[in-house]
């Protein structure tokens, strides 16, 4: 399939955006992990963990809750980064002449499951943190790290449909290849 200039541009733009997102999430997860470990020895770091995230009150009140919140944020950021690693791998192996391959289908299914996991984890954590906040714990701006759970769930639903279409596509492509 020959891509038009416009489609080629969009294709490259999406790939570039994915690289930026991957870098962003890696930096975010790395910075938070570093600051988390650092803050355990130097509590002053809790005032600005990442882009204004201030969990000093939470740290002073309950270290376990502080650790739970930060580990969750780091986990979700790492999962998001990994999703983009898989997406970039998908772009690398995707052959637009013969797009329906088992490998591509497997990668799309994997992205679906990771997106679904991120969505569910984000929603569960959102609910847990809401209840923790009601008990007087100040979680600051931490919510911004998991408030996109719904978007990830929707993405996983769309990807699930695409994965099913891909399965059908593989069948049709195989049949086409075995037509003489």
């Amino acid at each position, binding site marked *: 399939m020959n891509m038009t200039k416009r489609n080629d541009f969009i294709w490259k733009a999406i790939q570039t955006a994915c690289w930026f997102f991957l870098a962003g999430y890696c930096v975010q997860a790395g910075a938070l992990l570093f600051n988390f470990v650092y803050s355990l020895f130097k509590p002053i770091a809790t005032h600005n963990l990442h882009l204004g995230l201030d969990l000093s009150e939470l740290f002073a009140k309950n270290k376990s809750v502080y650790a739970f919140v930060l580990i969750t944020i780091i986990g979700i950021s790492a999962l998001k980064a990994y999703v983009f690693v898989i997406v970039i791998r998908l772009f690398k192996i995707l052959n637009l002449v013969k797009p329906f391959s088992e490998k591509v289908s497997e990668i799309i299914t994997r992205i679906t499951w990771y997106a679904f996991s991120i969505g569910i984890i984000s929603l569960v954590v959102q609910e847990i943190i809401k209840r923790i906040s009601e008990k007087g714990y100040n979680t600051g701006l931490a919510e911004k790290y998991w408030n996109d759970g719904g978007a990830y769930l929707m993405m996983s639903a769309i990807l699930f449909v695409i994965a099913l279409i891909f399965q059908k596509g593989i069948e049709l492509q*195989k*049949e086409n290849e*075995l*037509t*003489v």
Partner: protein
Amino acid sequence: MPIIVNLDVMMARRKMSLNELSEKVGLTLSNLSILKTGKAKAIRFSTLEAVCKALDCQPADIFEFVEKENK
């Protein structure tokens, strides 16, 4: 598959090699091999027409329906 391809039988009767048939029909050797070994899922009418013309036979001479026994 219950459809048996007797292309090799017809080729033997006409004393025609796979290479020769491939040239006459205009199909690649690999595609002819797929057809001959019964791996093909479908055959185009144009291919069937070309094969029948090259082997001077009817479609029924190439294909045979054999019902599978129920286990």
